[in-house]
């Protein structure tokens, strides 16, 4: 089932002579359970693509449809975007972004409570998620007491807390060594397979995306399907 569709998405920062086109007519599709990689060098537009999908940056033109909902339709407000993210998206970042004053379990609980899961049920679900990611025994520790790999696993647990249709991962392995990075990517493959979420992973490291279902390349704001590039050289943006 198609859960993400991006059509002709453009983002221009500034105006007039100072205008910078960060993203130009981008197209992307992801289905449930698929692993999608977006690869490109720094400044190529990867993060703009991701934040546009996340409802953080309002695109200049084009459409973003996730789970059948088109963001930035007429009348959308900040609270609509917050609810949209809460119900449909999970986030994983380069710097793990755990809340430092919360333990591993509480970091997951925050996301659960935001979704309205509270009390003993929330604690149980958090425990299950942490166990699922292999950090259950570290649930009572603050982030500063966890290794980089453990912090990333806790962050993934939190991203899974709202059973998202789409997980957006921004350079999730950048702060990890190769072995731990590949371990995280293996987790993504497992999550996509077992949870049915589409995982869209932005990275600059092409070695990390082995086994991904689709790979998009971004360069100077232009998004192209890597496999399509390889097959036909036409740079077709979609893979219907």
């Amino acid at each position, binding site marked *: 089932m198609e859960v993400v569709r991006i059509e002709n998405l453009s983002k221009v920062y500034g105006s007039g002579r100072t205008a910078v086109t960060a993203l130009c007519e981008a197209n992307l599709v992801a289905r449930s359970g698929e692993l999608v990689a977006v690869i490109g060098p720094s400044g190529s537009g990867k*993060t703009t693509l*991701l*934040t546009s999908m*996340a409802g*953080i*940056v309002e695109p200049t033109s084009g459409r973003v449809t996730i789970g059948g909902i088109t963001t930035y339709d007429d009348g959308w407000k900040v*609270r609509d975007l*917050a*609810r*949209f*993210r*809460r*119900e449909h*998206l999970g*986030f994983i*970042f*380069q*710097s793990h*972004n755990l*809340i*430092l*004053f*919360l333990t591993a379990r*509480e970091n997951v*609980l*925050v*996301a659960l*409570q*935001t*979704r309205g899961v509270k009390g003993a049920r929330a604690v149980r679900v958090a425990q299950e998620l942490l166990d699922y990611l292999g950090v259950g025994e570290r649930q009572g520790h*603050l982030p500063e007491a966890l290794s980089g790999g453990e912090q990333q696993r806790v962050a993934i647990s*939190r991203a899974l807390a*709202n059973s998202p249709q789409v997980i957006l991962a*921004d350079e999730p392995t950048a702060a990890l060594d190769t072995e731990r990075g590949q371990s995280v990517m293996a987790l993504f493959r497992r999550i996509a397979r077992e949870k049915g979420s589409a995982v869209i992973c932005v990275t600059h490291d092409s070695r990390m995306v082995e086994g991904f279902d689709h790979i998009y390349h971004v360069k100077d704001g232009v998004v192209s399907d890597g496999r399509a590039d390889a097959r036909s050289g036409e740079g077709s943006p979609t893979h219907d």
Partner: protein
Amino acid sequence: MNLAVRDIGRRPGRFALSCIGVGLLLTLVLSYSGIYHGFVYEALTLIDKAGADVWVVQRDTRGPFAEQSRLPEDIRYRMAIVPGVAAASPYVVYTIQRPWRDRSLRFVVVGYDLHLGLGGPHEVVAGRGIAQAHYEMVADAKLNLPLGTKLHLGLNDYTVVGLTRGVVGSSGDPVAFFSLADAQEIQFVKDNWAIRNLRERAKAAYTNALPTQPALSEVLAREFADNPDLHTVNTILVRLNPGSQPQAVAQAIGRWKYFTAYTTDEQSQLMLAGSVARARMQTLLFRIFLTIAATVIIAQIIYTMTLEKLKPIALLKLIGTPTRTIVGLVLQESLALGLIAYAVALVVGSLTYDKWPRLVLVQTADKLTLLAMVVGICVIASAMGIRRALAVEAGAALTG
């Protein structure tokens, strides 16, 4: 799970220090309320405890506390026959400061008529009241003079036979009670040379006026020279018969040419409108400035705490946390800071007020007012932090 509690728990020491700092500031705010009430209490203590209904003073003065008043002692007899008057009693009050052993004693001398007891010690908490006409005194415990202490004042020694507690003058100085004659003696004592000189001058005057009656001149000169000040008092305290109206009696006495009479309520108002009114303005201004300072400091602490949490707040926004949760995080920390500081202020105050040099009389209304102020301050102070928190873009969580 409460995010504010978790955030505070991460750096409890720093939060505790902030609470103590703000708490000490609030202690000052509360203290100034107590100091003002202490001023009022001390200003009115002697008036309230004198047991008089009407105060007769020198014409057009605001005596005997707000302004000096001097009256002949024998006016008491004229006052005693005014309709409605049950008793009239002379009263002397003044402040002295005398060296005693290795310290300086500053206290209010009150002289009263032992027979009527008007204006005397209201309650003796240790020892007994004055039982003889001379050389005994009842002192307030604040003077730190144990029972039996002999205090040399003027030409004589006075023995402390009783103690009172909490009886002070309008300036906060403890009160010592004496018989009327002793109080006058202490105030107007003259040395022997001065008395002899006065007699000689009087004798010369009378001899000149009565050249044929030298014996009478001698007697008159001696009488005159016996220090006429000793028969001067500051006020006449009047107690009324049941059913008599103080206002009516005061008006009746006021029609006499040389006296002004005040009811006890009017006497109290004179005190409050004088030095206490200025003290009230002074403490009010202090309280306003301290409150503003407390608001600014709490706002700064809350704002700084919010700035340190911008990344987690951005993250919370990114994962779709409702705005009310983020507002609650900032507001709850602000309220926690304010309420803990308030508790610190109450505790520090209750442990230290009895050690302050002046009476600090904090009333329940003051505490409740401060509590309401603290809540208000915290809400106002957290507004800046909330505004900053809500301005954070969710995308800020993505930046390293």
